[in-house]
Every structure is written in structure tokens, then in C-alpha cells.
């Protein structure tokens, strides 16, 4: 297990009290808290190096550009990208996927083509493809999940028979915590001639990711779930694909030359970074990556899996609690329901004890429909959580049961 006492001291927000109780933050799948190192990096950037990037002829602008580009190097190293040029900064996973759908998708997907997603995808890896398919007259095929919360590999195989143009899936499910066999799925999709889009929002903060080993074509990540500021994120893509794709946003920075009626494009990744970028977010993301690398991604994964295992074990001992599958090959995400107590009520009651969990559909309505529930409660762990947090969760759940007089469903 990680040294959580030391880690917690790095997070100013964890000193906060909720109704006299210490803050037990278990909504990390929604967003993570930020260590002082990241907060300081942003303050330092604005205090000493702020200028617009890639255009200044003065020292300050060069420093700002260096800070921005150093963050790109950090992202490339963090996911073992093909090169620095393979990393396009975006506002996060949602924008990254929209970029792929709008640029690669509009160019390569046409009438009668198929795009494959899965029933455990987040809305952000479903809706951009729905928009594309509706515009192009293409078919969106949603792969089913098994009863134990995994992508149904036989249905995946059937979906590939349509020779889809795109296969998109989450590396880790935000609602279930399932760690999908990404390399295998990518291999199968490639054999069927598809390009692969991996939603890495829930894998990047929690696992060691190697996009070259995975072999995917596009990998999307969000900084804010991995200690970095909101509005930070990246699309990591094979450079040859990026080279061939049309721009996403037109504006400054992304052009090479502009005539009255047409333009030529800057080199990748700048071709996709129209306008002044969010330099502070990139700088914060770079600092977050340094912090995570010092802890070690393998140790982080092990820590969270142990907490999830404990939480599942202890929640399962409470009469009326259902923990949703899978119980193996999962990240630190624990979805559950408690008798006939609605998750929204559960979240309110837990909040009184300082325990923050998420309640609702988690932006995965197709998945909720398949699970046959309107909503679940979800506890999700990160590096600063410990066994005491698991105990606080379980105790608060028991308290909710006493208040509501829970009937097991």
C-alpha cells in the first residue's frame, strides 16, 4: 500500500472538515483532488513565466513555450507515445474524442459504414459517434456486455463482421471499474480493418499505459482525473493518422499560411491546436505526471485495487447491499446499491459524515438500462484514500440503513 499519510499531506483540500468530520473523498472517477505541487506549478507559471506561446520574440514568451512543450514531452513519456508530435493538447477526453469523430470520422466514415462502441461506454464515447453516424448515414453498433460486467467478446466478434470503420471502447469502465482487455480488442478490431479509439479517461490516472504496446490508433485522456487542472487533457494518436487528418478548429497557431480564400496547415500537433492554448492546464498536467511517476503507476494500481477489494468485501457484509460485477480485473471503482434506498438519498446521508460518493447514472445510461437500475452509488478510490476511508464509507452506509430501515431488495 502507498504511504497515504504522507500523500494526504500534499493535498490541501483534504484538511477540510465536513460537518466536523474529515473529508473522505471517494468520487475520484468524477475528478481527482490536486496536490500542492500542481497548484504551485500553476501559480509559479503565472507568477514568473506567463506569455503567449509559439509566437513571442522575447525571453518570456520562449519560457512560456518551453513550459508548454515540456508538458507535452511529459504526456508523451507517460503513455509511451510514438513521439511528442503524437500528443495534441485538448480540454479533456470529451474534446479528444470529438476531435477524432469530427476530423478522422467525417473524412473516412460514409453512408452505410459502421461505427462500433460498447454498452459500457461513457456518453462522451457514444454521443460524438451518434452525431457522426446521423450526419453521414452510417450505423452505430453497440456491443453488449456480459452479466459479470465485461465486454461480450462474442458480440464484439459479431460486430466486427460488419467491417466497421471505427471501434471505440473504454480501457476502464467509469461505472463498473472493469479493466477491459484493450490490447486484445485492438488486435481484433485491426484485423477487421477498423481504427481504434480508446477512452483512457479512467485508465490514465490509475494504470501504467503504453499506447505503443496497446497498438491503438487514438487514445484520449483527461488531466483533471489524474491530479491535473480541469480543462487539461490530450489526444494521443499515431502521427501518420494525424498528418492525414483535416484540422478540427480553425484559427491562429494551427495555420502555416493564410491567403484571402484558403490556408495551409501547421505541422502536427499544432495543426489541431487552434487559438491560444490553456498553457496553465498543460503546465499543471506536467506537474501531475511528475507526481504520479514518482509514486509509480504500478504501485498506484495495486493500492487502489486493494482498497476496492476491501470495500467490496465489507460492503457485501451489509445486508441489502449489492455490489455490481466484475469482482476481478477491476480498477478502484465500486458501484453498489443498498436495498430500496435510492442512491441519491444515500449520497446525501453519506455527505453528512464527510463521505463524498457519486450517485446517478454516471453518464452511462445505456449501461444502466442493461443493469436494470435507474442509478447506482459509486465509490472510487485514489492515491490518498486508505483503509480508514473504506471504514468511513461502510459505517456511513450502515447509518443510512438505520435511518431508512432498509428492506433488502
Amino acid at each position, binding site marked *: 500500500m502507498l504511504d497515504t499519510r504522507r500523500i494526504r499531506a500534499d493535498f490541501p483540500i483534504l484538511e477540510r472538515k465536513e460537518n466536523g468530520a474529515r473529508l473522505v473523498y471517494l468520487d475520484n472517477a468524477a475528478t481527482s483532488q490536486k496536490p500542492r505541487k500542481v497548484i504551485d506549478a500553476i501559480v509559479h507559471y503565472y507568477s514568473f513565466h506567463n506569455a503567449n506561446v509559439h509566437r513571442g520574440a522575447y525571453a518570456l514568451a520562449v519560457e512560456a513555450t518551453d513550459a508548454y512543450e515540456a508538458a507535452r514531452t511529459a504526456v508523451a513519456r507517460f503513455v509511451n507515445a510514438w513521439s511528442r508530435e503524437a500528443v495534441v493538447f485538448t480540454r479533456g477526453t470529451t474534446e479528444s474524442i470529438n476531435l477524432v469523430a469530427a476530423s478522422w470520422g467525417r473524412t473516412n466514415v460514409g453512408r452505410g459504414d459502421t461505427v462500433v462502441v460498447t454498452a459500457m461506454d461513457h456518453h462522451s464515447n457514444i454521443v460524438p459517434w451518434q452525431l457522426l453516424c446521423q450526419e453521414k448515414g452510417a450505423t452505430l453498433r453497440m456491443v453488449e456486455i456480459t452479466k459479470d460486467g465485461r465486454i461480450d467478446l462474442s458480440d464484439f466478434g459479431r460486430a466486427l463482421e460488419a467491417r466497421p470503420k471505427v471501434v471505440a471502447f473504454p480501457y476502464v469502465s467509469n461505472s463498473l471499474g472493469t479493466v477491459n482487455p484493450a490490447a486484445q480488442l485492438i488486435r481484433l478490431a485491426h484485423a477487421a480493418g477498423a481504427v481504434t479509439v480508446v477512452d483512457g479517461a479512467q485508465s490514465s490516472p490509475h494504470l501504467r499505459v503504453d499506447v505503443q504496446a496497446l497498438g491503438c490508433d487514438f487514445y484520449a485522456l483527461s488531466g483533471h482525473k489524474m491530479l491535473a487542472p480541469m480543462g487539461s487533457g490530450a489526444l494521443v494518436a499515431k502521427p501518420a493518422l494525424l498528418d492525414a487528418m483535416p484540422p478540427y478548429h480553425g484559427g491562429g497557431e494551427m495555420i502555416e499560411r493564410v491567403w484571402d480564400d484558403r490556408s495551409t496547415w501547421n505541422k502536427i500537433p499544432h495543426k489541431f491546436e487552434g487559438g491560444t492554448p490553456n498553457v496553465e492546464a498543460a503546465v499543471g498536467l506536467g506537474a501531475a505526471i511528475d507526481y504520479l511517476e514518482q509514486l509509480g503507476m504500478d504501485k498506484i494500481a495495486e493500492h487502489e485495487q486493494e482498497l476496492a477489494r476491501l470495500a467490496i468485501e465489507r460492503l457485501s457484509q451489509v445486508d441489502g447491499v449489492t455490489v455490481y460485477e466484475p469482482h476481478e480485473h477491476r480498477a478502484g471503482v465500486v458501484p453498489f446499491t443498498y436495498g430500496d434506498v*435510492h442512491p*441519491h*438519498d444515500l449520497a*446525501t*446521508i453519506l455527505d453528512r459524515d464527510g463521505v463524498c460518493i457519486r*450517485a*446517478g447514472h454516471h453518464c452511462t445510461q445505456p449501461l444502466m438500462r442493461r443493469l436494470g437500475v*435507474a442509478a447506482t452509488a459509486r465509490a472510487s478510490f485514489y492515491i490518498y484514500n486508505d483503509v480508514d476511508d473504506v471504514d468511513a464509507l461502510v459505517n456511513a452506509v450502515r447509518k443510512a440503513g438505520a*435511518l*431508512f430501515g432498509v428492506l433488502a431488495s
Partner: protein
Amino acid sequence: MSDLGDLYQQVILDHNRNPRNFKRLDAANRTAEGNNPLCGDRIQLYVQLDGDTIHDIGFQMPQGSGCAISKASASLMTEAVKGKSTQDAESLFQAFRGMLAGGANAPGKLAAFSGVRAFPSRIKCANLAWHALHAALQNQGDPVTTESAKDF
């Protein structure tokens, strides 16, 4: 600090567990659907108007789609407006909404929801059924959502 007991008053827990008028009304001549897309709460409201009077009223929530606050609120609302004129029902709606916005308590058992004021994230749950009633009485065909009404 407000206590959980202020939010989950006994009358609310009771109406959550045993909602009144929890039925589909085949004789309804007004219906409305309410949605809270944030938490997935959904209500289907049935109103049988006899002239200007709410002769009967019922509601349904798909399995598991109503939290205690939204379900108890719908249940207590149906009790409060049954037999009332549409004008009186609209006045109760204004009183209820006013209470949650920080105003005086609504009359009778509806005052049980005064504790919701201290839980801003739950105000939409309490208001959901009332907005559906308002839509049904106005005979608006479109479903109402907690995200379309500005003062939900």
C-alpha cells in the same frame, strides 16, 4: 449544521415507503412527465379534471427512479391537491416553491419539506412533481425537466 432528521422527517420517510395515489389513472384527462436528467428521476403524473376541480390524481415512477424526496413530495402533493380547484393547486405550487426558495413554510404536511432548503442539491427532487403538476394543469404536452425551468 442541519441534521439529516430535518431532511428525512418521519412523514417523508413514511410517504417514501408507502406513497399515496401511486397509481396510473385510466380516467386521466391531463398527464405530464417530469424528468431530472441529473439523477435519472422520472415521474408520470395523471390528473382527472372535473371542470375546474382536480377530481382525482395519481403518479408513477419507473422502478428505482425516484429518490425518497421526490417520491414523498409527489405523494404528499397528490394528497394536498386532490379535490382542490386548479387555482388552489397553483397557489399551493407557488407556496411550496416559495418555501424551498427560502420563503415561509407551505401549509399543512407540505411544511415537512422545509428541511430541504438546507440541502440545495435536493431542491430539484422536491420540486419535480410540482412542476409536472403545473405542466399538466397548463396542458403542456412536452415533458418538463429540472433543467428547463429556470426557477426549479
